[in-house]
């Protein structure tokens, strides 16, 4: 059952990614990327990480993709790639290097020793969001606060970068 769900979701994720890569319109790209993010959030659920599922949906599929769509439509930058590429050999070289990267990462990723996936009581405790929350607010409290600071800096940066009437 899990395997069937995995394969369906994997096909959706790869389709979304490839469609994002090939579609000429940036709005379509953003929507296909949204499909891919949603599929990955389902993957998190299959991997018994329900908290990350919720975070992925709200932060990535919600906030980040809305930001992307908003900027694409604000700039009107849907189609800019009419002119041919300036470097002629870039495209075949990129495909070649991409293929090499895929082969290498598959070999490395599958080369390690694999233990059978855990089941039962330990997995139930692992998938409980409470254990993640406890870890976040005890052992990783300082990184958590630093993250809040990073978000504050991001807010200030966005405001400064988009001030009107002032040259940076």
């Amino acid at each position, binding site marked *: 059952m899990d395997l069937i769900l995995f394969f369906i979701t994997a096909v959706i994720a790869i389709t979304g990614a*490839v469609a994002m*890569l090939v579609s000429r319109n940036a709005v379509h790209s953003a929507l296909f*990327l949204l499909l*891919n993010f949603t599929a990955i959030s389902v993957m998190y659920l299959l991997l018994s990480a329900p908290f990350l599922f919720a*975070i992925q949906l709200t932060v990535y599929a919600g906030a980040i993709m809305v930001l992307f769509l908003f900027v694409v439509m604000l700039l009107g*930058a849907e189609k800019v790639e009419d002119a041919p590429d300036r470097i002629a050999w870039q495209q075949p070289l990129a495909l070649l290097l991409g293929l090499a990267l895929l082969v290498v990462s598959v070999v490395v990723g599958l080369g390690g020793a694999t233990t059978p996936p855990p089941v039962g009581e*330990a997995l139930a405790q692992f998938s409980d969001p409470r254990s993640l929350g406890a870890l976040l607010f005890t052992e990783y409290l300082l*990184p958590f606060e630093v993250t809040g600071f990073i978000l504050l800096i991001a807010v200030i940066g966005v405001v400064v970068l*988009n001030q009107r009437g002032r040259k*940076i």
Partner: protein
Amino acid sequence: MVPTSYYVLLSAILFTIGVLGVLLRRNVIVVFMSVELMLNAANLALVAFARERLAVEAQVLVFFVITVAAAEVAVGLALLVSIFRTKRTADVDEVSTLKG
């Protein structure tokens, strides 16, 4: 239960698609989206290994990656908007002022 290697395989495929997006596309927003796709692929591999090892710490790491990615997207898109305002283009080939 789905073996961890299947997730690693999917993650590798998605990461490669992201790399190809960065290398092949010239619309700066699509390039940025491909970077996000690569981040997501890395996150997927992390969560898969977290389940194999039953390490909740890896989930904490993914949580931090997602939060920092949100900040990165906000600043990056603000940069793109201000580049577009001054250069009137979203083509990465056109933004070459720093080229020697």
